[in-house]
Protein backbone atom coordinates (compact mmCIF):
# COMPACT_ATOMS: atom_id res chain seq x y z
CA UNK A 1 0.00 0.00 0.00
CA UNK A 2 2.71 2.42 0.82
CA UNK A 3 4.88 3.92 -1.87
CA UNK A 4 6.52 1.05 -3.54
CA UNK A 5 8.07 -2.06 -2.10
CA UNK A 6 6.23 -2.70 1.13
CA UNK A 7 8.44 -3.17 4.10
CA UNK A 8 11.68 -2.92 2.21
CA UNK A 9 14.31 -0.53 3.34
CA UNK A 10 13.52 2.85 1.93
CA UNK A 11 16.38 4.32 0.03
CA UNK A 12 18.22 1.09 0.09
CA UNK A 13 17.70 0.52 -3.58
CA UNK A 14 19.47 3.73 -4.43
CA UNK A 15 16.25 5.56 -5.35
CA UNK A 16 15.78 8.92 -3.71
CA UNK A 17 13.60 8.59 -0.63
CA UNK A 18 10.92 11.08 0.32
CA UNK A 19 9.22 10.73 3.70
CA UNK A 20 5.81 12.33 4.04
CA UNK A 21 4.34 13.03 7.47
CA UNK A 22 0.76 14.17 7.14
CA UNK A 23 -1.90 15.33 9.54
CA UNK A 24 -4.03 12.29 9.18
CA UNK A 25 -4.19 8.89 7.67
CA UNK A 26 -7.56 7.21 7.61
CA UNK A 27 -9.64 10.03 6.23
CA UNK A 28 -10.39 9.91 2.56
CA UNK A 29 -8.81 13.29 2.12
CA UNK A 30 -5.46 12.05 3.34
CA UNK A 31 -5.77 8.85 1.44
CA UNK A 32 -6.25 10.95 -1.70
CA UNK A 33 -3.14 12.97 -0.86
CA UNK A 34 -1.33 9.69 -0.45
CA UNK A 35 -2.59 8.54 -3.80
CA UNK A 36 -1.26 11.67 -5.47
CA UNK A 37 2.06 11.15 -3.75
CA UNK A 38 2.19 7.54 -4.88
CA UNK A 39 1.38 8.59 -8.43
CA UNK A 40 4.23 11.05 -8.42
CA UNK A 41 6.52 8.48 -6.86
CA UNK A 42 5.84 6.06 -9.66
CA UNK A 43 6.24 8.72 -12.29
CA UNK A 44 9.45 10.21 -10.92
CA UNK A 45 10.89 6.91 -9.73
CA UNK A 46 11.37 7.72 -6.06
CA UNK A 47 10.51 5.95 -2.81
CA UNK A 48 7.74 7.52 -0.78
CA UNK A 49 6.40 6.67 2.67
CA UNK A 50 3.28 8.28 4.03
CA UNK A 51 2.22 8.45 7.66
CA UNK A 52 -0.07 10.47 9.84
CA UNK A 53 -1.67 10.36 13.27
CA UNK A 54 -5.20 9.13 13.79
CA UNK A 55 -6.75 12.46 14.62
CA UNK A 56 -5.70 16.01 13.98
CA UNK A 57 -5.20 16.70 17.67
CA UNK A 58 -2.30 14.38 18.16
CA UNK A 59 0.50 16.88 17.94
CA UNK A 60 2.89 14.84 20.00
CA UNK A 61 2.29 11.66 18.03
CA UNK A 62 3.03 13.55 14.86
CA UNK A 63 6.28 14.89 16.28
CA UNK A 64 7.34 11.35 17.12
CA UNK A 65 6.53 10.32 13.57
CA UNK A 66 8.54 13.23 12.26
CA UNK A 67 11.44 12.25 14.50
CA UNK A 68 11.36 8.67 13.22
CA UNK A 69 11.12 9.89 9.64
CA UNK A 70 14.22 12.03 10.13
CA UNK A 71 16.01 9.07 11.71
CA UNK A 72 15.53 7.21 8.47
CA UNK A 73 17.69 9.82 6.75
CA UNK A 74 15.35 10.72 3.89
CA UNK A 75 16.51 12.70 0.91
CA UNK A 76 13.58 15.03 1.35
CA UNK A 77 10.76 15.45 3.83
CA UNK A 78 7.16 16.43 3.22
CA UNK A 79 5.40 17.71 6.29
CA UNK A 80 1.87 18.85 7.04
CA UNK A 81 2.26 20.38 10.48
CA UNK A 82 -0.51 20.03 13.03
CA UNK A 83 1.25 22.70 15.04
CA UNK A 84 4.02 24.52 13.29
CA UNK A 85 5.60 25.97 16.43
CA UNK A 86 6.07 22.65 18.09
CA UNK A 87 8.10 21.30 15.20
CA UNK A 88 10.55 24.16 14.91
CA UNK A 89 13.46 22.30 16.57
CA UNK A 90 13.05 19.41 14.19
CA UNK A 91 12.80 21.70 11.21
CA UNK A 92 16.11 23.18 12.26
CA UNK A 93 17.52 19.70 12.67
CA UNK A 94 16.41 18.79 9.16
CA UNK A 95 17.96 21.92 7.77
CA UNK A 96 21.25 21.29 9.49
CA UNK A 97 21.34 17.81 8.04
CA UNK A 98 20.66 19.18 4.61
CA UNK A 99 17.27 17.53 4.23
CA UNK A 100 14.96 19.79 2.23
CA UNK A 101 11.50 20.16 3.74
CA UNK A 102 8.34 20.71 1.73
CA UNK A 103 5.35 21.89 3.71
CA UNK A 104 1.96 20.74 2.54
CA UNK A 105 -1.67 21.34 3.43
CA UNK A 106 -0.77 24.20 5.74
CA UNK A 107 2.32 26.26 6.19
CA UNK A 108 5.03 25.93 8.78
CA UNK A 109 6.03 29.16 10.45
CA UNK A 110 9.66 28.70 9.67
CA UNK A 111 12.07 29.52 6.87
CA UNK A 112 13.10 25.92 6.57
CA UNK A 113 10.48 24.64 4.12
CA UNK A 114 11.61 25.32 0.61
CA UNK A 115 8.05 25.54 -0.56
CA UNK A 116 4.49 25.11 0.69
CA UNK A 117 1.85 23.18 -1.20
CA UNK A 118 -1.46 24.10 0.33
CA UNK A 119 -5.08 25.01 0.08
CA UNK A 120 -6.28 28.23 1.58
CA UNK A 121 -8.83 26.85 3.99
CA UNK A 122 -10.13 30.28 4.93
CA UNK A 123 -10.84 31.15 1.34
CA UNK A 124 -12.30 27.73 0.63
CA UNK A 125 -14.75 27.92 3.49
CA UNK A 126 -15.65 31.48 2.54
CA UNK A 127 -16.57 30.06 -0.84
CA UNK A 128 -18.84 27.58 0.91
CA UNK A 129 -20.42 30.46 2.80
CA UNK A 130 -20.95 32.39 -0.38
CA UNK A 131 -22.92 29.52 -1.86
CA UNK A 132 -24.87 29.10 1.35
CA UNK A 133 -25.81 32.76 1.22
CA UNK A 134 -26.82 32.49 -2.40
CA UNK A 135 -28.92 29.40 -1.83
CA UNK A 136 -30.60 30.27 1.45
CA UNK A 137 -30.80 34.00 1.31
CA UNK A 138 -32.03 34.68 4.77
CA UNK A 139 -32.78 32.81 7.97
CA UNK A 140 -31.02 30.49 10.36
CA UNK A 141 -28.11 28.26 9.50
CA UNK A 142 -25.74 26.07 11.52
CA UNK A 143 -22.35 24.43 11.31
CA UNK A 144 -21.27 20.91 12.15
CA UNK A 145 -17.52 21.11 12.54
CA UNK A 146 -15.06 18.26 12.61
CA UNK A 147 -12.39 19.50 14.92
CA UNK A 148 -12.32 22.28 17.38
CA UNK A 149 -8.63 22.56 18.01
CA UNK A 150 -6.79 21.85 14.79
CA UNK A 151 -5.89 24.69 12.50
CA UNK A 152 -7.80 23.23 9.58
CA UNK A 153 -10.85 22.57 11.69
CA UNK A 154 -10.85 26.08 13.04
CA UNK A 155 -10.23 27.78 9.71
CA UNK A 156 -13.06 25.95 8.02
CA UNK A 157 -15.43 27.37 10.58
CA UNK A 158 -13.74 30.74 10.77
CA UNK A 159 -13.71 31.43 7.03
CA UNK A 160 -17.36 30.51 6.79
CA UNK A 161 -18.46 32.53 9.78
CA UNK A 162 -16.46 35.56 8.73
CA UNK A 163 -17.97 35.61 5.28
CA UNK A 164 -21.50 35.32 6.59
CA UNK A 165 -20.97 38.06 9.15
CA UNK A 166 -19.51 40.41 6.60
CA UNK A 167 -21.55 39.66 3.54
CA UNK A 168 -24.82 38.04 4.49
CA UNK A 169 -26.48 40.03 7.26
CA UNK A 170 -29.75 38.18 6.75
CA UNK A 171 -28.21 34.86 7.66
CA UNK A 172 -27.81 33.94 11.29
CA UNK A 173 -25.48 31.17 12.42
CA UNK A 174 -27.44 29.82 15.37
CA UNK A 175 -25.19 26.99 16.41
CA UNK A 176 -21.80 25.44 15.82
CA UNK A 177 -21.25 21.94 17.12
CA UNK A 178 -18.21 19.73 16.77
CA UNK A 179 -18.46 15.98 16.38
CA UNK A 180 -14.95 14.87 15.57
CA UNK A 181 -15.71 14.08 11.95
CA UNK A 182 -17.37 10.84 13.07
CA UNK A 183 -20.28 10.10 10.75
CA UNK A 184 -22.69 8.88 13.39
CA UNK A 185 -21.86 11.52 15.95
CA UNK A 186 -22.16 14.22 13.33
CA UNK A 187 -25.57 12.91 12.41
CA UNK A 188 -26.66 12.97 16.04
CA UNK A 189 -25.32 16.48 16.48
CA UNK A 190 -27.03 17.75 13.33
CA UNK A 191 -30.30 16.24 14.45
CA UNK A 192 -30.08 17.92 17.81
CA UNK A 193 -29.47 21.27 16.12
CA UNK A 194 -32.40 20.76 13.78
CA UNK A 195 -34.52 19.83 16.73
CA UNK A 196 -33.59 22.96 18.62
CA UNK A 197 -34.14 25.13 15.58
CA UNK A 198 -37.11 23.82 13.64
CA UNK A 199 -36.90 26.75 11.26
CA UNK A 200 -33.31 26.02 10.30
CA UNK A 201 -32.58 26.68 6.66
CA UNK A 202 -29.14 25.26 6.10
CA UNK A 203 -26.25 23.31 7.57
CA UNK A 204 -22.62 23.31 6.61
CA UNK A 205 -20.47 20.28 7.39
CA UNK A 206 -16.76 21.04 7.47
CA UNK A 207 -15.31 17.75 6.29
CA UNK A 208 -16.37 14.52 4.73
CA UNK A 209 -17.53 12.79 7.92
CA UNK A 210 -19.38 15.86 9.16
CA UNK A 211 -21.03 16.48 5.82
CA UNK A 212 -22.22 12.91 5.45
CA UNK A 213 -23.46 12.99 9.02
CA UNK A 214 -25.52 16.07 8.23
CA UNK A 215 -26.98 14.40 5.15
CA UNK A 216 -27.82 11.37 7.26
CA UNK A 217 -29.54 13.56 9.82
CA UNK A 218 -31.59 15.34 7.19
CA UNK A 219 -32.58 12.01 5.69
CA UNK A 220 -33.47 10.43 8.99
CA UNK A 221 -35.60 13.36 10.08
CA UNK A 222 -37.42 13.36 6.77
CA UNK A 223 -36.33 16.92 6.02
CA UNK A 224 -34.77 16.15 2.67
CA UNK A 225 -35.21 19.08 0.34
CA UNK A 226 -36.18 21.46 3.11
CA UNK A 227 -32.68 22.16 4.26
CA UNK A 228 -29.71 23.35 2.29
CA UNK A 229 -26.73 21.18 3.06
CA UNK A 230 -23.26 22.24 2.06
CA UNK A 231 -20.32 19.95 2.52
CA UNK A 232 -16.59 19.84 2.22
CA UNK A 233 -14.24 17.39 0.52
CA UNK A 234 -15.58 14.56 -1.59
CA UNK A 235 -16.02 10.80 -1.30
CA UNK A 236 -18.68 8.64 -2.82
CA UNK A 237 -21.30 9.28 -0.16
CA UNK A 238 -21.01 12.98 -0.70
CA UNK A 239 -21.04 12.89 -4.48
CA UNK A 240 -24.04 10.56 -4.33
CA UNK A 241 -25.82 12.96 -2.00
CA UNK A 242 -25.19 15.81 -4.39
CA UNK A 243 -26.46 13.79 -7.32
CA UNK A 244 -29.55 12.83 -5.34
CA UNK A 245 -30.17 16.42 -4.38
CA UNK A 246 -29.72 15.80 -0.68
CA UNK A 247 -26.76 18.10 -0.66
CA UNK A 248 -26.65 21.39 -2.50
CA UNK A 249 -22.97 21.23 -3.16
CA UNK A 250 -19.57 21.08 -1.56
CA UNK A 251 -16.12 22.50 -1.64
CA UNK A 252 -13.40 20.16 -2.70
CA UNK A 253 -9.74 20.68 -2.53
CA UNK A 254 -7.44 18.88 -4.82
CA UNK A 255 -5.77 16.43 -2.48
CA UNK A 256 -4.42 14.29 -5.24
CA UNK A 257 -2.71 17.29 -6.72
CA UNK A 258 -1.49 18.26 -3.30
CA UNK A 259 0.21 14.93 -2.82
CA UNK A 260 1.54 14.93 -6.35
CA UNK A 261 2.93 18.44 -6.14
CA UNK A 262 4.53 17.77 -2.79
CA UNK A 263 6.52 14.84 -4.09
CA UNK A 264 7.32 16.67 -7.27
CA UNK A 265 8.63 19.63 -5.30
CA UNK A 266 10.62 17.27 -3.12
CA UNK A 267 12.30 15.71 -6.10
CA UNK A 268 13.03 19.14 -7.51
CA UNK A 269 14.54 20.15 -4.19
CA UNK A 270 16.70 17.04 -4.07
CA UNK A 271 17.97 17.94 -7.48
CA UNK A 272 18.72 21.42 -6.26
CA UNK A 273 16.19 23.29 -8.38
CA UNK A 274 14.73 26.63 -7.37
CA UNK A 275 11.11 26.45 -6.22
CA UNK A 276 8.25 28.89 -5.97
CA UNK A 277 7.58 29.68 -2.28
CA UNK A 278 3.94 28.65 -2.56
CA UNK A 279 2.22 26.09 -4.71
CA UNK A 280 -1.54 26.52 -4.46
CA UNK A 281 -3.24 23.20 -4.84
CA UNK A 282 -6.54 25.01 -5.22
CA UNK A 283 -10.12 24.33 -4.29
CA UNK A 284 -13.40 24.06 -6.21
CA UNK A 285 -17.08 24.42 -5.63
CA UNK A 286 -19.02 21.55 -7.09
CA UNK A 287 -22.69 20.78 -7.27
CA UNK A 288 -25.18 18.84 -9.34
CA UNK A 289 -24.47 20.94 -12.38
CA UNK A 290 -20.73 20.69 -12.64
CA UNK A 291 -20.02 17.46 -10.86
CA UNK A 292 -19.37 15.61 -14.08
CA UNK A 293 -17.25 18.34 -15.64
CA UNK A 294 -13.90 17.03 -16.55
CA UNK A 295 -12.04 19.52 -14.37
CA UNK A 296 -14.14 18.69 -11.34
CA UNK A 297 -14.39 14.95 -11.86
CA UNK A 298 -10.61 14.87 -11.94
CA UNK A 299 -10.28 16.24 -8.40
CA UNK A 300 -13.07 14.24 -6.81
CA UNK A 301 -12.17 10.99 -5.14
CA UNK A 302 -14.39 8.11 -4.22
Amino acid at each position, binding site marked *: *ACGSGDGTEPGAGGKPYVALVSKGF*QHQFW*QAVKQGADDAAAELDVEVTFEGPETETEVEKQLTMLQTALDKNPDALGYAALDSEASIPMMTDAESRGIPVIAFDSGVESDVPVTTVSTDNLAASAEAAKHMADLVGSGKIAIVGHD*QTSQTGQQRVEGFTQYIEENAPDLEIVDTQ*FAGGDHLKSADAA*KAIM*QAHPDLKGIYGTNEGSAIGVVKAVQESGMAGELTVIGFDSG*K*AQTDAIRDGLMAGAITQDPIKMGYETVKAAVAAIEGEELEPVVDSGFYWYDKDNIDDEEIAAVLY*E
Partner: protein
Amino acid sequence: MTTTSTPSDRPATRFGNRQQLQQILAFAGLVAIFAFFSIASPYFLDWGNVKGILLATAVTGIMALGATFVIATGGIDLSVGTGMTLCSVMTGVFLANLGLPLVVGVLGGLAIGALIGLLNGLNVSYLRLPPFIATLAMMMVAQGLSLVISGTKPIYFSDVAGFDQLAAGELIPGLPNAVLIFFAAAAIAGVTLSKTLIGRYALSIGSNEEATGISGVDVRRWKVVIYVVAGLFTGLAGVVMASRLNSAQPGLGLGYELEAIAAVVIGGTSLRGGKATILGTVIGALIMATLTNGLRIMSIPQEWQKVAVGIVIVLAVYADILRRGKEA
Protein backbone atom coordinates in the same frame (compact mmCIF):
# COMPACT_ATOMS: atom_id res chain seq x y z
CA MET B 1 -32.96 -14.71 64.32
CA THR B 2 -34.94 -15.15 67.43
CA THR B 3 -38.45 -14.81 66.30
CA THR B 4 -38.36 -15.77 62.68
CA SER B 5 -39.92 -18.96 61.55
CA THR B 6 -37.95 -21.29 59.33
CA PRO B 7 -36.73 -19.27 56.47
CA SER B 8 -37.82 -21.53 53.73
CA ASP B 9 -41.48 -20.73 53.97
CA ARG B 10 -41.02 -17.03 53.49
CA PRO B 11 -42.65 -15.75 50.35
CA ALA B 12 -40.27 -15.81 47.46
CA THR B 13 -41.51 -12.44 46.39
CA ARG B 14 -40.00 -10.46 49.17
CA PHE B 15 -36.55 -10.20 47.67
CA GLY B 16 -37.91 -10.41 44.20
CA ASN B 17 -39.84 -7.24 44.85
CA ARG B 18 -36.88 -5.45 46.24
CA GLN B 19 -34.93 -6.18 43.14
CA GLN B 20 -37.73 -5.01 40.91
CA LEU B 21 -38.04 -1.85 42.92
CA GLN B 22 -34.34 -1.30 42.51
CA GLN B 23 -34.52 -1.69 38.79
CA ILE B 24 -37.44 0.63 38.48
CA LEU B 25 -35.68 3.20 40.62
CA ALA B 26 -32.69 2.91 38.35
CA PHE B 27 -34.81 4.77 35.88
CA ALA B 28 -34.87 7.67 38.29
CA GLY B 29 -31.60 9.12 37.05
CA LEU B 30 -32.73 8.86 33.48
CA VAL B 31 -36.11 10.32 34.27
CA ALA B 32 -34.51 13.21 36.13
CA ILE B 33 -32.28 13.97 33.18
CA PHE B 34 -35.26 13.74 30.86
CA ALA B 35 -37.33 16.01 33.05
CA PHE B 36 -34.56 18.55 33.27
CA PHE B 37 -34.08 18.81 29.54
CA SER B 38 -37.81 18.88 28.89
CA ILE B 39 -38.04 21.97 31.00
CA ALA B 40 -34.84 23.47 29.67
CA SER B 41 -35.73 23.11 26.04
CA PRO B 42 -39.14 23.03 24.40
CA TYR B 43 -37.74 20.94 21.58
CA PHE B 44 -36.47 18.14 23.72
CA LEU B 45 -39.62 16.17 24.46
CA ASP B 46 -40.69 15.61 20.91
CA TRP B 47 -41.09 12.19 19.35
CA GLY B 48 -38.69 13.12 16.59
CA ASN B 49 -36.05 13.95 19.11
CA VAL B 50 -36.71 10.95 21.32
CA LYS B 51 -36.39 8.84 18.21
CA GLY B 52 -33.09 10.57 17.56
CA ILE B 53 -31.89 9.70 21.05
CA LEU B 54 -32.93 6.10 20.64
CA LEU B 55 -31.20 5.90 17.30
CA ALA B 56 -28.07 7.42 18.79
CA THR B 57 -28.22 4.81 21.56
CA ALA B 58 -28.66 1.84 19.26
CA VAL B 59 -25.13 1.09 18.09
CA THR B 60 -23.28 1.81 21.35
CA GLY B 61 -26.13 0.16 23.19
CA ILE B 62 -25.77 -3.09 21.29
CA MET B 63 -22.03 -3.08 21.92
CA ALA B 64 -22.66 -2.40 25.59
CA LEU B 65 -24.97 -5.43 25.77
CA GLY B 66 -22.12 -7.67 24.69
CA ALA B 67 -19.65 -5.91 26.95
CA THR B 68 -21.99 -6.58 29.88
CA PHE B 69 -21.34 -10.31 29.62
CA VAL B 70 -17.60 -9.91 29.60
CA ILE B 71 -17.70 -7.44 32.45
CA ALA B 72 -19.94 -9.81 34.40
CA THR B 73 -17.05 -12.29 34.41
CA GLY B 74 -14.78 -9.60 35.82
CA GLY B 75 -13.15 -9.08 32.42
CA ILE B 76 -13.15 -6.12 30.08
CA ASP B 77 -13.56 -5.87 26.33
CA LEU B 78 -11.67 -3.08 24.64
CA SER B 79 -12.16 -4.57 21.19
CA VAL B 80 -15.85 -3.79 20.80
CA GLY B 81 -15.27 -0.47 19.03
CA THR B 82 -12.83 -1.40 16.30
CA GLY B 83 -14.19 -4.94 16.28
CA MET B 84 -17.54 -3.48 15.32
CA THR B 85 -15.80 -1.64 12.49
CA LEU B 86 -14.16 -4.81 11.25
CA CYS B 87 -17.58 -6.48 11.19
CA SER B 88 -18.94 -3.53 9.20
CA VAL B 89 -16.12 -3.81 6.72
CA MET B 90 -16.51 -7.56 6.35
CA THR B 91 -20.23 -7.15 5.85
CA GLY B 92 -19.29 -4.73 3.12
CA VAL B 93 -16.93 -7.24 1.60
CA PHE B 94 -19.59 -9.94 1.65
CA LEU B 95 -22.42 -7.81 0.31
CA ALA B 96 -20.90 -5.06 -1.81
CA ASN B 97 -17.72 -6.68 -3.04
CA LEU B 98 -18.67 -10.33 -3.27
CA GLY B 99 -22.34 -9.69 -3.93
CA LEU B 100 -23.58 -12.39 -1.56
CA PRO B 101 -27.26 -12.45 -0.65
CA LEU B 102 -28.33 -10.02 2.07
CA VAL B 103 -28.97 -12.67 4.70
CA VAL B 104 -25.65 -14.35 4.10
CA GLY B 105 -23.83 -11.05 4.33
CA VAL B 106 -25.49 -10.12 7.57
CA LEU B 107 -24.85 -13.53 9.08
CA GLY B 108 -21.30 -13.23 7.82
CA GLY B 109 -20.93 -9.97 9.71
CA LEU B 110 -22.20 -11.63 12.88
CA ALA B 111 -19.86 -14.55 12.30
CA ILE B 112 -16.87 -12.23 12.11
CA GLY B 113 -17.99 -10.80 15.44
CA ALA B 114 -18.17 -14.28 16.88
CA LEU B 115 -14.70 -14.98 15.52
CA ILE B 116 -13.30 -11.88 17.21
CA GLY B 117 -14.94 -13.03 20.42
CA LEU B 118 -13.56 -16.52 19.97
CA LEU B 119 -10.02 -15.24 19.64
CA ASN B 120 -10.46 -12.99 22.65
CA GLY B 121 -11.88 -15.90 24.60
CA LEU B 122 -9.11 -18.28 23.65
CA ASN B 123 -6.46 -15.72 24.53
CA VAL B 124 -8.06 -15.05 27.88
CA SER B 125 -8.88 -18.65 28.75
CA TYR B 126 -6.13 -20.75 27.32
CA LEU B 127 -3.22 -18.31 27.09
CA ARG B 128 -4.34 -16.83 30.41
CA LEU B 129 -3.81 -13.30 29.13
CA PRO B 130 -5.40 -10.56 31.20
CA PRO B 131 -8.60 -9.56 29.37
CA PHE B 132 -7.34 -6.01 29.16
CA ILE B 133 -4.30 -7.12 27.17
CA ALA B 134 -6.06 -9.70 25.02
CA THR B 135 -8.77 -7.28 23.95
CA LEU B 136 -6.41 -4.33 23.64
CA ALA B 137 -4.40 -6.38 21.18
CA MET B 138 -7.59 -7.34 19.37
CA MET B 139 -8.61 -3.70 19.27
CA MET B 140 -5.42 -2.88 17.40
CA VAL B 141 -5.53 -5.89 15.13
CA ALA B 142 -9.16 -5.24 14.20
CA GLN B 143 -8.40 -1.61 13.50
CA GLY B 144 -5.49 -2.49 11.28
CA LEU B 145 -7.35 -5.24 9.46
CA SER B 146 -10.33 -2.98 8.79
CA LEU B 147 -8.01 -0.59 6.99
CA VAL B 148 -6.13 -3.32 5.18
CA ILE B 149 -9.21 -5.16 4.00
CA SER B 150 -11.05 -2.07 2.88
CA GLY B 151 -7.95 -0.56 1.32
CA THR B 152 -8.53 2.35 3.75
CA LYS B 153 -11.57 3.32 1.71
CA PRO B 154 -15.21 3.18 2.75
CA ILE B 155 -17.22 0.38 1.23
CA TYR B 156 -20.57 1.59 0.02
CA PHE B 157 -23.74 -0.44 0.07
CA SER B 158 -25.52 1.76 -2.48
CA ASP B 159 -25.91 -1.20 -4.80
CA VAL B 160 -27.06 -3.62 -2.14
CA ALA B 161 -30.80 -3.32 -2.35
CA GLY B 162 -32.55 -3.11 0.98
CA PHE B 163 -29.44 -3.04 3.15
CA ASP B 164 -30.05 0.46 4.43
CA GLN B 165 -33.59 -0.55 5.39
CA LEU B 166 -32.12 -2.85 8.04
CA ALA B 167 -31.53 0.20 10.20
CA ALA B 168 -33.62 2.91 8.61
CA GLY B 169 -36.73 0.94 7.70
CA GLU B 170 -39.67 1.01 10.06
CA LEU B 171 -41.29 -2.37 10.65
CA ILE B 172 -43.21 -0.63 13.38
CA PRO B 173 -44.22 2.67 11.83
CA GLY B 174 -42.45 5.55 13.50
CA LEU B 175 -39.78 3.41 15.08
CA PRO B 176 -36.62 2.85 13.05
CA ASN B 177 -35.56 -0.77 12.79
CA ALA B 178 -32.18 0.04 14.35
CA VAL B 179 -33.99 0.86 17.57
CA LEU B 180 -36.16 -2.21 17.26
CA ILE B 181 -33.06 -4.34 16.78
CA PHE B 182 -31.50 -2.76 19.85
CA PHE B 183 -34.52 -3.55 21.99
CA ALA B 184 -34.81 -7.07 20.63
CA ALA B 185 -31.11 -7.60 21.27
CA ALA B 186 -31.54 -6.26 24.78
CA ALA B 187 -34.39 -8.68 25.42
CA ILE B 188 -32.30 -11.59 24.19
CA ALA B 189 -29.34 -10.43 26.22
CA GLY B 190 -31.53 -10.08 29.29
CA VAL B 191 -32.84 -13.61 29.03
CA THR B 192 -29.39 -14.95 28.25
CA LEU B 193 -27.87 -13.25 31.25
CA SER B 194 -30.48 -14.22 33.77
CA LYS B 195 -31.91 -17.47 32.47
CA THR B 196 -29.26 -19.44 30.66
CA LEU B 197 -26.10 -21.20 31.71
CA ILE B 198 -24.04 -18.63 29.82
CA GLY B 199 -25.29 -15.80 31.99
CA ARG B 200 -25.26 -17.80 35.20
CA TYR B 201 -21.72 -18.94 34.70
CA ALA B 202 -20.61 -15.46 33.64
CA LEU B 203 -21.86 -14.11 36.96
CA SER B 204 -20.45 -17.04 38.92
CA ILE B 205 -17.04 -16.65 37.33
CA GLY B 206 -17.12 -12.96 38.09
CA SER B 207 -18.17 -13.67 41.63
CA ASN B 208 -15.52 -16.31 42.38
CA GLU B 209 -13.72 -17.89 39.49
CA GLU B 210 -11.87 -20.48 41.57
CA ALA B 211 -14.94 -21.64 43.43
CA THR B 212 -16.86 -21.87 40.17
CA GLY B 213 -14.13 -24.06 38.74
CA ILE B 214 -13.97 -26.34 41.76
CA SER B 215 -17.75 -26.68 41.53
CA GLY B 216 -17.29 -28.51 38.26
CA VAL B 217 -17.92 -25.72 35.81
CA ASP B 218 -15.48 -25.80 32.92
CA VAL B 219 -14.49 -22.20 33.42
CA ARG B 220 -12.17 -21.98 30.44
CA ARG B 221 -14.67 -23.29 27.98
CA TRP B 222 -17.48 -21.14 29.30
CA LYS B 223 -15.31 -18.06 29.18
CA VAL B 224 -14.74 -18.70 25.53
CA VAL B 225 -18.48 -19.06 25.04
CA ILE B 226 -19.09 -15.80 26.88
CA TYR B 227 -16.59 -13.90 24.76
CA VAL B 228 -18.18 -15.36 21.65
CA VAL B 229 -21.56 -14.10 22.81
CA ALA B 230 -20.05 -10.67 23.35
CA GLY B 231 -18.56 -10.92 19.87
CA LEU B 232 -21.95 -11.67 18.36
CA PHE B 233 -23.27 -8.42 19.77
CA THR B 234 -20.22 -6.64 18.37
CA GLY B 235 -21.05 -8.15 15.00
CA LEU B 236 -24.65 -7.03 15.25
CA ALA B 237 -23.51 -3.53 16.13
CA GLY B 238 -21.27 -3.58 13.07
CA VAL B 239 -24.10 -4.58 10.78
CA VAL B 240 -26.44 -1.94 12.20
CA MET B 241 -23.72 0.68 11.95
CA ALA B 242 -23.01 -0.22 8.34
CA SER B 243 -26.68 -0.15 7.48
CA ARG B 244 -27.21 3.17 9.15
CA LEU B 245 -24.31 4.78 7.29
CA ASN B 246 -25.10 2.66 4.23
CA SER B 247 -21.36 2.22 4.10
CA ALA B 248 -18.57 0.60 6.06
CA GLN B 249 -16.21 3.27 7.37
CA PRO B 250 -12.90 1.61 8.18
CA GLY B 251 -11.50 4.54 10.15
CA LEU B 252 -14.30 4.63 12.69
CA GLY B 253 -14.64 2.77 15.95
CA LEU B 254 -11.90 3.86 18.28
CA GLY B 255 -13.37 5.36 21.43
CA TYR B 256 -16.67 3.49 21.15
CA GLU B 257 -15.34 0.86 23.54
CA LEU B 258 -15.05 3.40 26.33
CA GLU B 259 -18.58 4.60 25.69
CA ALA B 260 -19.89 1.06 25.75
CA ILE B 261 -18.07 0.20 28.96
CA ALA B 262 -19.19 3.47 30.50
CA ALA B 263 -22.82 2.61 29.69
CA VAL B 264 -22.40 -0.75 31.39
CA VAL B 265 -20.81 0.69 34.50
CA ILE B 266 -23.27 3.59 34.77
CA GLY B 267 -25.94 0.90 34.64
CA GLY B 268 -24.66 -0.44 37.94
CA THR B 269 -22.64 -3.39 36.70
CA SER B 270 -19.46 -3.81 38.68
CA LEU B 271 -16.14 -3.99 36.84
CA ARG B 272 -15.07 -6.50 39.49
CA GLY B 273 -17.56 -8.92 38.07
CA GLY B 274 -20.37 -10.95 39.56
CA LYS B 275 -23.00 -8.25 39.33
CA ALA B 276 -24.66 -7.25 36.10
CA THR B 277 -28.06 -6.41 34.70
CA ILE B 278 -29.06 -5.79 31.12
CA LEU B 279 -31.71 -3.29 32.09
CA GLY B 280 -28.99 -1.32 33.81
CA THR B 281 -26.88 -1.34 30.68
CA VAL B 282 -29.78 -0.16 28.54
CA ILE B 283 -30.46 2.65 30.97
CA GLY B 284 -26.78 3.50 31.12
CA ALA B 285 -26.59 3.76 27.35
CA LEU B 286 -29.74 5.88 27.28
CA ILE B 287 -28.36 8.20 29.93
CA MET B 288 -25.23 8.81 27.89
CA ALA B 289 -27.14 9.46 24.67
CA THR B 290 -29.78 11.63 26.35
CA LEU B 291 -27.17 13.78 28.02
CA THR B 292 -25.31 14.44 24.80
CA ASN B 293 -28.50 15.12 22.90
CA GLY B 294 -29.96 17.40 25.54
CA LEU B 295 -26.84 19.48 25.88
CA ARG B 296 -26.63 19.85 22.12
CA ILE B 297 -30.26 20.86 21.90
CA MET B 298 -29.55 23.50 24.49
CA SER B 299 -26.70 24.68 22.26
CA ILE B 300 -24.21 24.37 25.07
CA PRO B 301 -20.77 24.86 23.55
CA GLN B 302 -18.95 21.61 22.91
CA GLU B 303 -16.24 22.28 25.49
CA TRP B 304 -18.78 22.83 28.23
CA GLN B 305 -20.74 19.77 27.15
CA LYS B 306 -17.81 17.60 28.17
CA VAL B 307 -17.66 19.22 31.57
CA ALA B 308 -21.39 18.88 32.05
CA VAL B 309 -21.46 15.22 31.00
CA GLY B 310 -18.63 14.47 33.40
CA ILE B 311 -20.39 16.10 36.31
CA VAL B 312 -23.78 14.57 35.54
CA ILE B 313 -22.25 11.10 35.35
CA VAL B 314 -20.77 11.56 38.80
CA LEU B 315 -24.11 12.76 40.14
CA ALA B 316 -26.13 10.01 38.47
CA VAL B 317 -23.90 7.22 39.69
CA TYR B 318 -23.62 8.72 43.14
CA ALA B 319 -27.40 8.97 43.40
CA ASP B 320 -27.58 5.34 42.35
CA ILE B 321 -25.10 4.36 45.06
CA LEU B 322 -27.04 6.25 47.70
CA ARG B 323 -30.26 4.59 46.61
CA ARG B 324 -28.80 1.11 46.73
CA GLY B 325 -27.03 1.87 49.98
CA LYS B 326 -30.33 2.70 51.59
CA GLU B 327 -31.98 -0.47 50.45
CA ALA B 328 -29.19 -2.86 51.34
